[in-house]
């Protein structure tokens, strides 16, 4: 990397061009975000006026309080949280032993699991959602959060398994063997040796599951019709249709608030996440 930088630096025009390119990228990436932020602070009068600047005149929190006060958004956020947390707990509890077994025991299961993980990515959701809808209707789980949790858990599993396998494979078997030589049973080895080493990967995987469930839209759109049961993405999408054109500021504020959990989690795990994705891809 350094040599590349040095040799590139020999050309006088290369550096400024690189900065120019980086600046262009940053504008493309950041401008929509800044605009959303500024819209959320603007008053309705500012939003309507054609000569208002891009920045709000003052940091006005009315839109945020109005968005929070909206009962349906509030309920929706609660539903989303409940669904995402439950899904994450289930997926982590189920994926952890499975990932360990798939990596450590070379059985035919592993090939089957890998095949299914890949397959589940390729199939169009429409093929899955119709039977799932019929199935959940039969057992009375359409329009319930429990039904949504089941669907999310099953459809987050492949990716969680994929990521966790990478983390498990990164733990040297020798450590487990050493612990066994010291007389520790397998359960003790798992608890005292494997689990602590796996903790960062486990955190990354479960946060990833959380974000996926928090953000999910398609399954919720089909499975939830009752306004009391809707999740945040659903509520926001309906808000656009219903009053979004009038209440731009509130829409922007609500959108920003809805991003906060994922943004916070993302900043916490960004390094681990990339490591996990890659190791899953290379060693999984």
């Amino acid at each position, binding site marked *: *990397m*350094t*040599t*590349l*930088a040095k*040799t*590139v630096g020999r050309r006088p025009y*290369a550096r400024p061009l690189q*900065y120019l*390119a*980086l600046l262009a*990228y*940053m504008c493309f*990436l950041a*401008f*929509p975000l800044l605009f*959303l932020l500024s819209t959320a602070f603007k008053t309705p009068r500012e939003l309507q006026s*054609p000569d208002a600047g891009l920045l709000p005149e003052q940091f006005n929190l009315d839109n945020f309080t109005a968005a929070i006060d909206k009962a349906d958004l509030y309920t929706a956020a609660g539903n989303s949280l409940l669904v995402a947390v439950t899904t994450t707990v289930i997926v982590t509890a189920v994926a952890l*032993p*499975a990932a360990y*077994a*798939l990596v450590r*025991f*070379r*059985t035919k*299961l592993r090939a089957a*699991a890998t095949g299914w993980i890949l*397959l589940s990515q*390729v*199939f*169009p*959701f*429409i*093929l*899955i*959602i*119709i*039977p*799932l809808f019929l*199935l959940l209707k039969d057992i009375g789980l359409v329009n319930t959060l429990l039904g949504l949790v089941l669907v999310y858990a099953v459809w987050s599993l492949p990716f969680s398994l994929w990521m966790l396998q990478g983390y498990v494979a990164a733990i040297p*078997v020798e450590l*487990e*063997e050493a612990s*066994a030589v010291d007389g520790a049973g*397998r359960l003790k*080895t798992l608890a005292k040796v494997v689990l602590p080493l796996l903790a960062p990967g486990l955190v990354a995987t479960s946060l990833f599951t959380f974000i996926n469930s928090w953000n999910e*839209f*398609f399954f919720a759109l089909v499975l939830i019709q009752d306004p009391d049961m809707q999740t945040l993405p659903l509520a*926001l*999408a309906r808000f*656009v249709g219903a009053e979004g054109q009038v209440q*731009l500021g509130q*829409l922007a504020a609500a*959108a920003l608030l809805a*991003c906060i959990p*994922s*943004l916070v989690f*993302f900043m916490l795990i960004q390094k681990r996440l*990339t490591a996990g994705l890659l190791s899953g*891809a290379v060693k999984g």
Partner: protein
Amino acid sequence: MTALAAPPRPRRRSSDGRDAWLLVLPALLPVMLFSVYPLVYGVALGFTDAEAGLNVETHFNGLDNYVELAGNGLFWDSFKIGLIWAFSVTVLQFLASLGLALLLNLDLRLRWLARTLALVPWAMPPVIIAIMWQLMLNPSYGPVNRTLDALGLPSSINWLGEASIALPVVIVVGVWAGMPQTTVTLLAGLQSVPAELNEAAAIDGASTWRRFWHVTLPALRPIIVAITTLDLIWNFNSFALVFVLTAGGPGGTTMLPSLFAYNEAFRYGNFGYAAAMGNVMVILIGAFLFLYLRGQMRRRLQ
């Protein structure tokens, strides 16, 4: 219990199979019930006349759905739009992300900021990305038109409402939304290219461009193949972004196949017919992936 206390080796032992099954079972059961079974059921539905509603009897109707589908011009239009969307977004996303990853791999100032910004769209729900771009592209108060206005350019463009430009505009939003995964993956790949290779080539007098083309790019190839394949699948199956942005409009010009099949199933209630569309989608995209990956394998073997 002595068998359990033995060191866990990645070698096959008699108890391993049983232990593995026990550990995998909690994952296997729900997956069989809510994933494998629905998939098989879904594929089978594509050969029936299933419809929404109570007490509607379902019959196998063989290839009727496919015969009807073959003559359904709207579906093929939508399929074409889906292919244009998936390929354009994947290719543009790849080129834009490769450029950004190369820049982030250099020793530039403000790199951390660009890196953080590049990750943000990943954390945003597609619904919110769509809402944000609706605000951006709003014909009267959106900043895009106002910037054009300030520059004295035509500024009353209805970006998402004009049939001739809606698809390209939606593609740009798709690129914005999908850049993070690709950039991060390529950047990680770049960082794993051994520096010695580039140094050796530099000593041999290879120019920056030649080193990129003959050293960096070949080393990145496996990662490029993996991420473009995944991107293509994700983009072809994507739904929420375009559903909220345009709902397939104006005049069906952004009607991706996933939206088309969704409408068929949940607006008109034709479950069997919609499942048949899903089958056609999976066969065509599967065939393409097969050819692409086989081509890449052969290239690698040579």
